[in-house]
């Protein structure tokens, strides 16, 4: 009497558990596909920290797609501005520096209608804008400065980006120093190609002559001495496919936190 009922119970349990597991797996799969199609999965989603990274990136992307980084009063600008330690500058940089950066070029290629290369003068011919925002380092320190430049979106509009573009990959004059951001950040009105700071030229210690400012992410996404930007639909073919040099060095690709 008790024997068959136990079997029945376990069979029912097995079926419900199986169904629940299948539904769960399907649900997770569907969630992953939806997340992927809405661009909510970071390139460094693999590995043991993938769950936390994906939750952070997806939730912040949903909450902050259009939000503006806090801007400050002129009186809040940090004096003196803080130049963080920079790696030794290479010969290519020193050569351009000796020529007063007249030959500095910022080239844009990849999924664009007209690949282009801009001199600093050409970048300055776009209407200049400024923002007083905070640069915050992952180590914990911060400073506020006025950043002067041209919104990256203006440059991207001028070269005509393809509709399938999803990321921009940008590189310092030191080719080992490269980062990428998604289109939400690339087209964000505060993402600047900055060539000036606090009313003057952008000092070398702060990334001069040209730095990509991404004020809604930590400082390491604001690459100094930028020379090149590639518009792409996939980060797989860049470096180890983790999105940028940061995850290759053990740091998160998304640094909005």
């Amino acid at each position: 009497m008790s024997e068959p009922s136990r079997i029945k119970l376990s069979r029912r349990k097995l079926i419900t558990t199986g169904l629940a597991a299948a539904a769960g797996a399907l649900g997770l799969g569907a969630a992953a596909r939806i997340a992927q199609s809405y661009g909510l999965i970071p390139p460094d989603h693999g590995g043991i920290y993938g769950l936390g990274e994906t939750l952070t990136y997806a939730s912040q992307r949903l909450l902050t797609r259009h939000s503006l980084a806090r801007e400050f009063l002129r009186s809040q600008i940090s004096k003196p501005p803080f130049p963080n330690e920079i790696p030794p500058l290479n010969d290519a940089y020193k050569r351009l520096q000796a020529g007063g950066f007249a030959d500095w070029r910022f080239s844009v290629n990849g999924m664009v209608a007209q690949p282009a290369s801009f001199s600093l003068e050409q970048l300055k011919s776009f209407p200049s804008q400024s923002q007083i925002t905070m640069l915050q380092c992952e180590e914990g320190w911060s400073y506020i400065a006025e950043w002067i430049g041209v919104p990256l979106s203006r440059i991207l509009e001028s070269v005509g980006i393809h509709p399938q573009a999803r990321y921009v990959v940008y590189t310092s004059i030191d080719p080992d120093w490269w980062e990428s951001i998604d289109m939400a950040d690339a087209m964000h009105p505060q993402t600047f190609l900055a060539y000036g700071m606090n009313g003057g030229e952008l000092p070398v210690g702060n990334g001069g002559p040209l730095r990509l400012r991404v004020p809604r992410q930590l400082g390491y996404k604001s690459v100094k001495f930028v020379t090149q930007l590639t518009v792409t639909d996939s980060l797989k073919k860049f470096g180890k496919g983790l999105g940028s040099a940061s995850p290759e060095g053990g740091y998160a690709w998304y640094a909005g936190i």
Partner: protein
Amino acid sequence: MSDSACVPSSVTAVPVAKVAARHSALVRVTHWITTFCFLALLVSGVEIVISHPRFYWGETGNDLTPALFKLPIPASRNLVPTGYGYVLPDQNGWSRYLHFQAAWVVVFTGFLYLISGLLTKHFSKNLFPRGAEFSWREFSISIAKHLRFERPSDGEAWSYNLIQRLAYLLVIFVLFPLVIWTGLAMSPAFVSAFPATVNLLGGQQSARTLHFFVSCALLIFLLVHVVMVCVAGFKSRMRAMITGRADSPMERS
């Protein structure tokens, strides 16, 4: 009827094997997940602080600005003026990955605990001080007992004393919400959407400093909690939180 006649009479006198658990399964599981996450957050948090062991008040602070206070430890960055002649290895990459992953897990665990605690009336039954208990007299008696490191009575194996209740309530409803708030207030992307989270705290560096102090308070709670578990009886209290079984006065006599 004939069946029951076979049962030895002594068995009926012994309490049934199935006793109510001291801590519900959900409390036990969320307790240990939280413990595990807190230790991960602590270790990774210490590593992150080592990269800049200086604290400030207001919006900004860096090596060129005066510090509110400095920790007397070496740093993992050579630009930080620590007074030590050496630099520790950089551990921030994995520390930051682990810190935020553990934060997500502990936040989900905390929500589960909060919702179930409200549904099962865990807070009102077990944590909020009972009316009669909540007096200065009871409070000073409880303090005195703690200062004498008095072992709790058998009856207390099944409940919490006043100070214990207040300490748990402080951790659950004040320190954990504060540590999450001050943590989020340091995120440049999060505060772009919700600037009040950082403005109310007086700035990004204030948020960082407060995050450090709240974490210290949580660490002090953890240390005192472990000492109290040892005073009350390490084995019995650990068994109660792992298996749910507690010493009942009946078993002891």
